[in-house]
């Protein structure tokens, strides 16, 4: 039998694997793009020595839909619906960042009631995101019942979102200058019911996982990253906080009235998968505290700005005021114009710092939008986190970074 040269179907990645792999001493294994534990359409080319990962090469872009290019061709208010679709587990967070950036560019005021409702919904969204993360992370480590419990609780958050906006996921409830409409009367009751129910549920999750030897064996000392390394790789959010750096945009540069609320930033010490788990569990508790405070002093008043150049007039005014009809017509035919300028606005999404870079040339369409998304940088850090671990641990590491591929590829 003549010796045949090995054929590889990845010419574009060939220069990244080691010499040993090309000689056939280490195994090249393709993980994904269709694999349940990669949390989306993520392809990882693994170079394995036995079962130990020598090298991990992430390949992204399978969900790239050109959202940034698309938004440049839409009017400001129409482009907002696309922000929901980037990180589909954090819709209101994306809306919030986009609206805040427009409000900063246009110097638009937001009434206190809208700000408080925004905070409540954004924190509910954080809990909902962490529930999906917790459920899938535990599922990846073979604790299947967690997944069912977490999705049961997430359902009540989705119900609250449906109550407000009529949509369960892609709400687009926040608009530049405030909210789409006022919250219904049942909102407060529903949120309070959730606040009463949820602390007990967190205790149940912790009882199932925190001291569970199967869980701790598979998460402690796995995927460790030091604080300096995490900062140099631009990691933010629970990954950075798990390494002991208390950086949270809500505290550092408060937006939407976060400075009024009393909460702490949980941090870890070891920077491993287990510490990120603890950080996220504690973050859910802190989110509950913020919601409680915001709900207790929920101000009355208008739910959106009175600036008619950006915000449509109430329906009732259209019958009596000619000016309102003109504003309504202008807003829905040509949209509003944002003054020339550029801004970078970061918010704390559940996954880390989510920044919107917006540039306007004075027209009714955005000139340039760039989203600095935490998942993109999280996947970039995977090779560092995964090196030297087993393939089975890689699944835990991917889960602990909490990635959404829609957020990464945009």
């Amino acid at each position, binding site marked *: 039998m003549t010796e045949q040269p090995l054929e590889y179907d990845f010419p574009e990645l060939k220069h990244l694997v080691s010499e040993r792999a090309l000689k056939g001493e280490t195994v090249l294994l393709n993980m994904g793009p269709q694999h349940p534990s990669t949390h989306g359409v993520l392809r990882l080319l693994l170079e394995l020595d036995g079962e130990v990962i020598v090298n991990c090469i992430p390949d992204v*872009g399978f969900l790239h839909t050109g959202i940034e290019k698309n938004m440049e061709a839409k009017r400001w208010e129409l482009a907002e619906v696309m922000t929901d679709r980037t990180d589909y587990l954090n819709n209101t967070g994306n809306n919030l960042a986009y609206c805040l950036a427009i409000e900063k*560019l246009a110097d638009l005021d937001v009434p206190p009631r809208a700000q408080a409702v925004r905070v409540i919904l954004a924190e509910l969204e954080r809990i909902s995101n962490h529930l999906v993360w917790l459920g899938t992370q535990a599922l990846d480590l073979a604790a299947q019942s967690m997944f069912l419990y977490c999705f049961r609780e997430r359902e009540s958050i989705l119900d609250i979102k449906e109550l407000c906006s009529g949509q369960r996921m892609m709400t687009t409830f926040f608009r530049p200058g405030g909210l789409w409409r006022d919250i219904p009367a049942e909102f407060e009751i529903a949120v309070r019911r959730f606040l009463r129910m949820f602390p007990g549920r967190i205790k149940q999750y912790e009882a199932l996982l925190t001291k569970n030897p199967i869980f701790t064996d598979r998460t402690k000392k796995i995927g460790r990253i030091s604080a300096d390394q995490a*900062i*140099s790789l*631009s990691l933010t959010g629970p990954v950075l906080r798990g390494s002991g750096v208390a950086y949270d945009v809500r505290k550092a*540069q408060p937006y939407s009235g976060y400075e009024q609320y009393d909460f702490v930033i949980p941090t870890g010490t070891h920077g491993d998968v287990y510490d990120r788990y603890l950080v996220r569990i504690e973050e859910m508790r802190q989110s509950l505290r913020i919601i409680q405070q915001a709900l207790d002093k929920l101000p009355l008043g208008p739910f959106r700005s009175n600036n008619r150049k950006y915000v449509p007039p109430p329906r009732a005014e259209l019958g009596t005021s000619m000016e309102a009809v003109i504003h309504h017509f202008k807003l829905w035919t040509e949209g509003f114009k944002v003054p020339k*300028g*550029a801004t970078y606005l970061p918010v704390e999404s559940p996954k880390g710092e989510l*920044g919107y870079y917006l540039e306007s040339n004075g027209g009714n369409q955005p000139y340039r939008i760039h989203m600095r998304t935490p998942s993109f940088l999280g996947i970039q850090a995977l090779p560092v986190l995964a090196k030297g671990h087993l393939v089975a641990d890689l699944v835990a590491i991917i889960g602990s970074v909490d990635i959404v591929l829609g957020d990464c590829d945009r």
Partner: protein
Amino acid sequence: MSYPPTLIAQPEQIVEISQALRDEYKFNLLCELTAVDYWPEEEPRFNMLYGYYSISENSRMAIRVPLNGDHPTIQTISGVYPGANWHEREVWDMFGIKFENHPDLRRVLMPYDWEGHPLRKDYPLGYEEPQFTFNYDEIDKRKHHGRYEEA
């Protein structure tokens, strides 16, 4: 840029500036790296944007670098901030700005054999023609099947 405070720099200074910002002024987190295309209105066609954040001082700043020409190059800062690696790949992918000395300058979001740089203003917002059995070959001829562009 109205926020954060922005300085304008020349392309050859960017590595030095980044080094100084990180080591002397404690801007240790690179929070944003992107580009803007001003074609056809303005003459320095591209602007590179760098956003820095200092965790200890809690302050942000940005650097804007105008780049001339249709195929500009600039030094990579991934040696200073390793987190810039994928951001620069994205800028290369979307705008065709080359980064000298970059360790691994490949496309990141578009397919590796794609031609053109989609976020340039002269790149049309097009669509992909649906291929059916009766017109598969006809449309296939018009598609990009070139070898991938050497960075």
